[in-house]
Each structure stands twice: as C-alpha cells, then as structure tokens.
C-alpha cells in the first residue's frame, strides 16, 4: 500500500478545513489519521475530507471517518467526504457494509457521509 499523506488545507474562503488523504490508510496509520481528523474538527466548523486520491482504506479508517462524522454532528459541526468518484473508496465502504439509504441514528440533518456519495 502506498504511503499515506495527510494534508490540511484551509479553504480560500476560510470557513472550511480540508483534509486531503492520499495513499492507503491502514491500521498502522490509524492513530495518525484520528489525530488529523480531530485537529481538523478543532480548527473549523466545517470539515471536508478529500479521499479522491485514496488508494486503499481498511476498516479502521472507515470506522474513524464514521466516528469523526458522529463527533462533528454531536458538536454541531459538519463533516463531509469528497471522494471524487474514487472507486477504491466506494468499494471499500460498500464491502464493509457502510452504504446507507438514510443516515445513522445520530444523523438528524441527513448529512451521513455514507448516503449516496458526493462526487
């Protein structure tokens, strides 16, 4: 699996924090990934996780994305995922049973990251 890089970019307008994840996320990078997500959520009310350059993600990664979203919802922030049509990412999410027709129980605002898929 390719080396993972976590890159934080501030959106030009300044309201959105973008976390660009490229390479493959595995259990080895899980801690690092969690910290990056936490930091991003701490920095702005709106976080966008860009996974379009992801080349692989395991269960820990998917789980963290989901947990990050739940945390964001609980603290009144928003988090979305931009996958840019990344087939690897979509397959991984589907394979693990993360696809949804409606959001999860915490999701009152229909913002579940697994619904549909932004591209």
């Amino acid at each position, binding site marked *: 699996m390719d080396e993972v890089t976590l890159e934080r970019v501030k959106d030009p307008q300044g309201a959105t924090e973008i976390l660009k994840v490229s390479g493959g996320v595995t*259990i080895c990078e899980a801690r690092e990934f969690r910290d990056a997500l936490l930091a991003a959520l701490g920095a702005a009310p709106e976080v966008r996780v860009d996974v379009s350059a992801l080349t692989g993600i*395991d*269960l820990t990664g*998917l789980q*963290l994305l989901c947990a*990050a979203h739940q945390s964001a919802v609980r603290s009144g922030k928003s988090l979305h995922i931009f996958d840019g049509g990344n087939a690897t990412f979509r397959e991984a999410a589907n394979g693990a*049973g993360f696809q949804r027709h409606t959001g*999860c129980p915490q*999701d009152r605002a229909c913002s579940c990251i697994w619904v549909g898929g932004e591209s």
Partner: protein
Amino acid sequence: MTDLHRQAFKEEAYELLTELESSLLELEERPDDQDLIGRVFRAMHTIKGSGSMFGFDDIASFTHEVETVFDMVRNGKLSVTGRLVNLTLAARDQIRAMLDAADSGAETDLQASAEIIVGLRELAGFAGAASAAIEPQEVVEAQRKDPVTYRIRFVPQEDIFATGTNPLNLLAEMKELGTCTVVAQTDGFPPLEEMNPEGCYVHWDVILTTDQGENAVRDIFIFVEDDCELKIEVVAEHSRYDEQQDYKKLGEILLERGDITADEMKAVLSQQRRFGELAVSEGILNEAKVQAALAEQKHVKEVRQEKQAADASSSIRVPAERLDLLVNLVGEMVTVQARLSQTAAQRDDAELMAIAEEVERLTAELRDSALNIRMLPIGSTFSKFKRLVRDLSVELGKQIEMTTEGAETELDKTVIEKLNDPLVHLIRNSIDHGIELPEVREAAGKPARGTVHLAAVHSGDSVLITIADDGAGLDKEAIRTKGIERGIISAGAELSEKELFGLIFAPGFSTAKTVSSISGRGVGMDVVKRAIEALRGSIDITSVRGQGTRITVKIPLTLAIIESLLVKIGNDSFMMPLALVDECVELTREDVARSHGRNLAHVREHLVPYIPLRQHFRITGTPPDIEQIVITQVNGMRVGFVVDHVIGEHQTVIKSLGRAYKDTEGISGATILGDGTVALILDIPQLVQAVETEQN
C-alpha cells in the same frame, strides 16, 4: 419417489447432457475459458445432486467421479487437455446410456464406466488422494439444493485486529457464498477523541442467501469464534416460496432478531403510523436497527423476485403427444371453419357471414399459435452434429472445423426429428468425400484445417439448410463415368451440371472407390433424397471442383399445414403444394393436336413436358375444351400437370391416408375441403419419377 419425478429428472438430465456436450466441445477450442469449465462442473453437479435425490444412485456415484476431476480443473489444479475432453465426452455418453437403461431395465456396461473412471483418476493423478479426503462432506452439501436465507449478526470483540483478523475478509468470503447484504452497525461508537484507533467498534448484520448450507457459513468464522459474538438464524427457505404469501413485516423481523419485545411492538402498533418511524420516535429502537431490518426485508424481496423472474421465464414441459393432439384439433377446426365460411357465403346471410369472419380470424390465430408451440430452434440438432464432426475427423485423421449459423431458426418439432438422419448423412459425406486429408489440402494451397459450414435460414414458408464444405468438390467426370457404368445415363448423353450432380441421388450410386466405415456404400444419397421429399422438401447441389460443395435442403416450416393449389379433374379435387408450382397456362385442343401425340407444350418458346393427370389416374369422362397446365418445378426441371380447372390457393390441413393406402403412389395425403369433400394431395416428385420410369 414417484415415476413422475424420475421422469422429470430424466428430461432435465438429457437436457443437461446436451448442454454438457456442447460446452465440452467449446472447451476443447478454448481450454482456458473459466466460464465453460464452470458450466461443465455445474452440469455434472446438478446431475449428481438430483440423480441421487431421485434414486439414480449409479449415475450419481459415477458422475461424482467426473465432477471431482472438474472441480480440480475449476480450481486450477488440472488443466484441460484433449484427453480430459475425450474422457469426459465418453463419460457423458455413459451417463446417457445409464439414463436410457434406467427406463428399459437393461444393464449398463459397468466395464465401460470403470474404464472411464480409471482414466479420469489417472488424469487427476497425485491430487486424487487429496480430493478423496473431502468427498463425504461434498456429497452432503451437494444434496442441499434449495437456497436458504440466513440472518447473521457478527459482533467482533474490540481487540479483534490484534489477533490479525480482518473482518472485511470474512465479509468478502460470505459474499462468495451467495447473495449477500451487509449492513455495518456504527451506533456503538465512542466519541472520536476517546476512540482507540486500533479497536473495532463496528458490528454487522448480514443477510445471506446461499445454497451451501449453514456449515459453510460457520466455517468462515471458524478461526474467530472465540473473538466474536456470532448469531446465525434462518430467515427464509426459498423452496417454500409458493406457500409463503407475504414478506415478513418489519416488526416481525425486529421481533425475531430480539431487537424489540412483543409488548413493545404491540404498543407501537396500536398507533397507525409506519412502524419503523414509530419505533424510533418512541425511543424503543435506534435508526440503525431499523435500517438493518429494512435491509433484510429488501434482500429477501429481491431474492424472491429474482427467483420469480426465473420461474416466469422458464418453460412448461408438455408431452409431445398432447401438442400433436392440439394441432390435430386445430386442423379439424380449420376445416370446419372453412365449411362455415362457405355455407355463410352460400346462404347470403349477413349475420352468419359476420360470425363466420370472426371465427375465421380466431381460427387463423389459433392455428398459428398452436403450430408455433411445436416450433423448436434447430440449434440442438446442430450441436449434435458438432460432436459427429469431431469424432469423424479424429477417426479419419482429418482436421475439420464445423461452423454453424442460424441455430435459432425454428422448425416444426416433427420436421426437425425427421431431418436428423438425412443431415447426418450429408455431413458424413462432406467429411468423408469432401474434405481432403491435411497433406492434400496443404499441397493444394488450402489451409490444413477444412471447414464444414452448417446454416439454417428462413425463406418464406420454408427453411433453407445449407451444408457447405471447402473440400475437393464433386468430380463431374467420375460421376459421368459411373453413371454410364451403372446404366443410369447413356454414353452420349449431354447433361447439364445440375442434372449431372442429380445423378448422385440415383439409387446404387457411389463414386467412392473404397467403402469406408463412414460412407461409400452407395445407399446414402437416394435415401437422403427420399427422406427430404417425404418432408415435402427439395435438395440442391452446387459444387466447384477443388473448392468445395454446397448442398441446400429446402424444407417446409411445418408438416401439418401447407399452402396449396386446389385443382379439379371431373368431380375430383386435388391439391398441389404451392411451393412447387411455377405458373398455370391453358391447353387447348389445337395445342394437343399440334404436338402430334407427344405430351409437350409450348410455353414462351420453350418445350415443357406434361403429364395428363386425367389419363394418369384413369378418370373417366370428357375433359373440357380448354384444360389447364399447372407447371411445377421438380429437380430443376419444369414439368406440367394437366387438369380440368384450377380453383385457387388453399390452406390445407394435411391428413394422412391411413395404413391401407400408405403405398399409394403419387398421393402424399388428403385434406377435407370446406364443403366436406376429400381432396387428395399430389406427390409431385413421385408422379414425375413414376412417369419417367414408365417411359424408360
């Protein structure tokens, strides 16, 4: 087990065997095609499974041996070789023989079975021992045919990753077992900051429909059993679909899963709102649980719809006799309808005529659909020939490829059955006399591998079947010499190419210098011609020396009804198949006088010989002043038939004449006309032949 089931199994097995044969032949050409290997394996698997279920134990155990070998092929442990295909084809024939024997009670050749098994085991070689060990379980599993839907709740422990297990792999394995819906449950997640990134917090609800049995599912979790909570329950057994009318209600599913108690459900149900929304708003359930239950409902629905779609597209087996009876009844109906129309017209009763027209329309539709039921694609016959070509070319040391075209062309079932033997003969001829040995072909600048092309195409109310080879072609001189030798033609006879080629259909004619086991006994082509003519078809040859021969057989679509021309001689009515009729011209007394007693008519500067049917059938009475000549096309020759009157075209339902008249010459059947009288159907080719022999 009743005979009915055994019969159904046998029919299914015959079909599978046919499919198996064509798959094997294709496999020989494309040995790496996994799809084909899978098809062969599945065919064997089904025969074995249902064979043992219906008490064909010998077939089941024999097939098992073959299946084992193909399982190895499927798993890449064995590659497809010519020997494997040969043995499997032999095994296929053996299974067929066993099926045949099961009916007649005859003994099957156990020696042959044993030899095939020994051959296969040898081929499997070292790996044979390994596969033997897993046999018993496989047999048990094979008998589980009906798919079952399981509900699997898989809750891994938090530290499951530490043991090196990836739950995703387990999910992927489950997906291989069958149709699988996976829903991840994420509601137990701690806040992100408290989360152990290396822990597992997700659990899954999986709905799996598989025919592999519960043990296959449990096997997937065999190494993680201690590290997870696993619950497997049966949701639906799909064989019982027909009895189960409704899908499970959402509440039932949740209740079964233990996500909700019966009391809670009752409380919720007492309010009339959608159950899922209600339960959530009541705080009894969280959304995720409902989601999973909904997914289950959807999954079962989908599997069932798939099965229903498959059922709907499948066919019904009906004994052929019942269809024949139906077609016969429709035939009677057509006749009665014609009488009704005629009567209505005679009475000049508008009301009756309206009814008659309606009946006519319905009868026509009924007739078409009844005949359509008996239509079968000719493809199954074609695939049989593939085997024939393969076996013969091996035997003769020739390299021959058979190509087919128009396998989907439909023909009446009875026609297809009767076509089989003549076609076999023609193909054998092409292979034996037509295609040369590889060396000879190469010397002639042709590819070493010869081609026999078999094509079927619709043409009007007939089907044209072409057998074309790229072999040596017919030797005109050899045919002429032989024709003179056999006294079929005179030494100085000038014959057109067509007439010359026509000679090979003469009885006792064969140009092969030596008699081989395949053809050359000279009892072939005349029999072929008779068989084709009995189907009211015709046969035509074109051939170019050195380039190949093309034989075209023209066959009517159905034997039950023909388009014909109704003619009258005196008070008798006759039918002439319209397909053979070219045109009708008048014959006056003067014309007869001009030809000085020879039966020849001038038609547009050409002389056309004719047969005066009145004399031929010895019908008394005087013919009208102007008679009619119906000119027909027989064997590429124009021959006229003199009749009193030509009435017109007619849809004729053919009735056989019955046993007493089966040797009647010149008549191929009879039909009943609208007014109830009988009209005889003329056998034109035979009439021509009879007159020719008379004159010689």
